[in-house]
Each structure stands twice: as C-alpha cells, then as structure tokens.
C-alpha cells in the first residue's frame, strides 16, 4: 500500500500522552529557500484530512498540542547520494503527513533485509528536510552498521517504508532575536533544519561547528549556515580549539556580545552539560536533541527511556515521544 494513513477516527477524540514544554503551538513560518542541504520546512499547518485533532496529554499539564499525526507509509527514493566518504543524503517522495515534519522530529526507517546480516529493528533518523509543496523528505545519515549500510545500498526508484514524523522537535519563540547552535559531527543533520526555521523566523544565529579536523560535513555545513546569514565559528579538534574550554570561551563571548535568547545542541553529553551550565548561569533558554536506542519510536516499548529532572526530582522520560528534543533545564548533566 502506498500509504497506510491514519484511521478516520471520526468517532472518538483520541487523547494521547505527549510532552510539551512551551504553550506556543509548534508553528514555524518558513519561506522556501534552497540550501545545499535541501529545502527547509514549509509552514506546519495541521492537515485537515477530516481527522480529529489529536490531543496529547502532557505529563504535567493538559495543554493541547496540535501536531502532525505520524504516517506508516512507503516513500519513493528520488536520490540517495554520497556527500562524502561516510555520509549519504537521501531524498524521497513522501506522503502529505510525512512532509509536515518539524525540525528535531524524526522518522523510523524500515531498512531492507539482506540475508542473515539483516537489521531487524527500524532505524531512527532525524528529518534533514521536509517540503509539503514538493512532497519530499530528506535524511542525512552516516553509514556505520547493518541498518545504515542497507539504506546506503538503496537506489533511486526503490521504495522505503518510513514511519513519521515522530517525537517533539525544537520550539522557537516568536519574540526571540538571536540563538546559538553548537553542532558536532552527525548532529549537524538534526540541527541544520533548525537553522533554516530560525532564518525563516528572522532570528539571528551564531553557529559553532565543532568537528574532527577536515570532518566530512564541516565545509558544506559552514557554507549552508553562512548562506542563512549565520555567523559561523569553527572549532576543530586537530588545531586543539574544539576542546570544550575553547567552545566555552566562544559561548561566553557570544553571550556577552549578543545576549542570545536560547542555546541549541544535539547528541554529545559533554556539549549538553556545558550548555546547561551556561544557560542556567545566564538565565538563557536551551534545548537539546537527544539520541537513544529505539525500537517502536512511538512510546510503546519503553526501551528509549532516560532519567531527567523535574522540580529537582528524577523522572523517566521516553526520548522517542517526550523528546527527542528536551529542554536543557530537564536534562541531567
């Protein structure tokens, strides 16, 4: 079936569990702008395919968060090209629901199975791009193990079962003037769409790219961010600058000069801890996109839980539904 689609649950208002940080509806106004990294997100209007609005109960308060319902569909691969030695960029023709994906949301991909080395679980992958007008979604992925190897062997014209958009993405406040994004390695794939969204929101950006030396993604990312008008600082391991204290110095300077409204990062524990400390110190907001091994991606299996803190008490949250983007204040350093 080309596209499973959501049941026309006309009968019942389906209330689910969902985490929400800010009361703002997660709406982003994005205008079209091509970047090397593909098309940024279109405006996330909730598709009115006669579906009841899905309201998800947040563990703390009962705020209704209108969000795109995930779709369990089959997408058609348009392009699946090497960006460099390790990374591939995949572009697919996908369903309307899939193309509603927001920065920080992800998809669970059913990698093709080849003989005994077949991957079994689906593999989670951040939305690298989603364009409802062109009906396309994009992934930028590092080929590391069985699943990503299987993905890398797919060719234009092949189909791929994708489940998404899943989880809660980044939240941008309309009154924000300036944000700082600290990106490292494969986290670039998750943060690039955030930069696109901020740009569309006319929010100024400083991006700190921290990567091993001639890291594959370094140069192309730098160009993409600069095209979005971001001030790009690079911190490279080989010249010693990307040590944590180097990044801390840069951040302190930016905080002094630009009084940024929020700090963003993805994945690395040490960077997350640094940003949490600085955000608390200067009363700045902050969000981090996290990664954990996943099976269902929907919140059912309980394998992707992490310990967070809320009002000083430890609480267990599922990265797939209560994340992957969490507020820095909740994260346990």
């Amino acid at each position, binding site marked *: 079936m080309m596209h499973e689609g959501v049941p026309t*649950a006309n009968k019942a208002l389906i*209330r689910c569990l969902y985490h929400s940080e800010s009361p703002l509806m997660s709406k982003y106004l994005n205008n079209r702008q091509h970047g090397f990294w593909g098309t940024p997100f279109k405006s996330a209007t909730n598709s009115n395919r006669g579906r009841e609005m899905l309201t998800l109960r947040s563990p703390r308060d009962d705020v209704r968060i209108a969000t795109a319902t995930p779709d*369990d569909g089959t997408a058609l691969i348009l392009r699946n090209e090497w960006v460099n030695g390790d990374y591939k960029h995949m572009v697919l023709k996908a369903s309307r629901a899939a193309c509603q994906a927001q920065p920080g949301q992800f998809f669970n991909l059913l990698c093709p199975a080849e003989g005994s080395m077949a991957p079994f*679980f689906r593999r989670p992958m951040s939305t690298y791009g989603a364009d409802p007008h062109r009906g396309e979604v994009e992934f930028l992925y590092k080929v590391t193990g069985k699943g990503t190897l299987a993905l890398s062997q797919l060719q234009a014209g092949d189909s791929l079962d994708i489940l998404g958009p899943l989880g809660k993405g980044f939240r941008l406040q309309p009154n924000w003037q300036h944000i700082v994004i600290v990106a490292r390695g494969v986290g670039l794939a998750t943060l690039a769409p955030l930069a696109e969204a901020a740009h569309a929101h006319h929010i100024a950006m400083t991006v700190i790219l921290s990567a091993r030396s001639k890291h594959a993604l370094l140069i192309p990312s730098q160009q993409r961010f600069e095209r979005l008008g971001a001030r790009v600082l690079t911190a490279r391991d080989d010249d010693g600058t990307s040590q944590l204290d180097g990044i801390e110095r840069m951040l302190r300077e930016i905080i002094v000069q630009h009084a940024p409204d929020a700090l963003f990062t993805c994945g690395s524990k040490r960077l997350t801890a640094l940003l949490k400390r600085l955000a608390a110190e200067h009363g700045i907001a902050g969000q981090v996109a996290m990664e954990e091994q996943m*099976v269902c991606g929907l919140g*059912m299996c309980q394998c992707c839980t992490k310990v967070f803190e809320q009002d000083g008490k430890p609480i267990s949250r599922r990265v797939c539904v209560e994340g992957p983007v969490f507020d820095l204040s909740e994260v346990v350093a």
Partner: protein
Amino acid sequence: MIDLSVTVGGLTLKNPVMPASGTFAEELALLLDFDRLGALVTKTITADKRSGNPLPRVCELPGGMMNAIGIPSKGVDDFIEHTVPFYQRFDSPLIASISAPSATQFAALAARLSATPGIAGIEANISCPNIEAHGQSFAMHTASTAQVVSAMRAATSLPLWVKLTPNSGEVVNVAKAAESAGADAIVMGNTLLGLSIDVHARRPRLGNVMGGISGASIKPLMVRLTYQCAQALDIPIIGCGGIATAEDAIEYLLAGASAVQVGTATFIHPHAMQHVIQGLEAFCEQEGIAAVRTLTGGLNDAPGALFGATP
C-alpha cells in the same frame, strides 16, 4: 461475510487477534483503529511505581529481538486514573495485564481492578523472565502457579487469563495447575530467557545481562507448547510468539488456540495486527470457511507412515 468472532475465557471477541502485553499502548491509536482489534491488552502494571531495568533494555537477534525492559510502571493509581479512561472510547474489551511479587499482592491488585469499571478481563503475567533472578517466575512450577492463580480467582470474578512461560520444563502440568485453580484461559506465552554477548566489548548486550527472546525464532517452540496444552486442557488457549502474518496465526489456531496475540511484529510494522486480521478473512474466503473459530484444533496430527527399512 466471514464470521471472525471467537469466545475466549468468558469473553466474546470480534476477531481472534489482539496485542501482546508490553508491545501496545495508547500512542498506537495515532495509526491504528483500536475498534478493529479483538481485545486491547495493556502493558503489565504493578501496584507501585517501578523504574524498570538498566539500559540497554533491547537488542537485535537474527529475525527477532531480546528484551529486559523489567516492567517499568506508573503504578495502579495512574493506570485507573489515566489509562483505563483512555480505552473507554473503544468497544473492544480491555484486558489489564498485572504483575506482583507475591500471590497475596497479585490477588489484591486483581481485586482493585475488578472494582474499576471498563476492565473486561485480567491477564496475570506470572511469567515475566526479567523480574526475579534468572527467570524464576511463578509459572516455572505447578505449586507456585496453583497458589497464585487460586488467590487471584478468589479475588475477582472477571475473566482471568494466565500467561505462561516456555522456560518451564513442565509447561503442560503448569497449565493444568492454572486450569484447576480457576483460570478462564491460558496465554501461551511469554518470552524465552536468553543471553546475547557483544564479543568485542566482552559484555552482555542487555543491561540486565539476560533477557526474553521474542519474534519469529520462538514461533515453532510456542506452537508446540500451544499444541501440547490444547491436548491437555478444556479451557481455551491464546497463542502468542512470533506472529507476524495470518499464516502464523493460523498455525496457532490449528494447533488448538482459540485466539492469538501479536507482539514484536507491531514494533516493526505498526499495522501488523490489521494485516493479520485481513489475512485471516482472505484465508477463510479462499478455503471456503464460514467461521474462523472452526480452525481451532483443526490440525491433522496423524504421524507419517513408519519408515520401512534400516540403512
């Protein structure tokens, strides 16, 4: 139209397909119409809050998986206050899966839920391999099974389904003990205790060291156990283990099951249960079967002719 309805342990289900506990939750309503399912089986809950096991809680196996989730739970209060009301929207019967450390606590939890409107039946998970040390759950032995089931029987008049473990060496005796103690149906069964090692790290792949194997690799074992139980019991059996297609489900029905549960397959294909139900209907149409329940125990198990010569 094919009659897909079945009666199981005092309940009539619109079809024989339901989720296996722990592989199904409210969020699936975003993708699947719960009214199409034979019953709705919730994640096992415990009276008190539980954190669950150390990570990693899952690992891949060829054609299957292993888990040691360890039954994280928000406790019975949250279950009654939030979870049960959520499921009231749907007309498929709600089966609450429960676990407890002792027979008396199992009975207390069963009683508490029996007093909660909207719960159509109780599935006693006396077979989770990841709670006690090395899978020594109640369902490993007849005595502990009889004790916990009779305690629960006395505490509730709701249909009581007892979920067994393939890790016991005397599954049929355990099943008979559950039947005599008042079980309305047997669920056959929970995961098979295993160990998978990352040879480079020299570490178990699961934080809990051992875990429960599920998926295609356990299907022939569980079909065999379903068949053996069906020969020995009068109460119905619900088959569970490695079901991903209608054919898998029909193997269990022919072996003697009255209904089936789909677990791991839903993690890979969220619409798996829907496809199994559609497949059952198509099979019955092709084979000219009016009611799917007539498949139960339909296996022709006469052995082949003796081989008439020595080498």
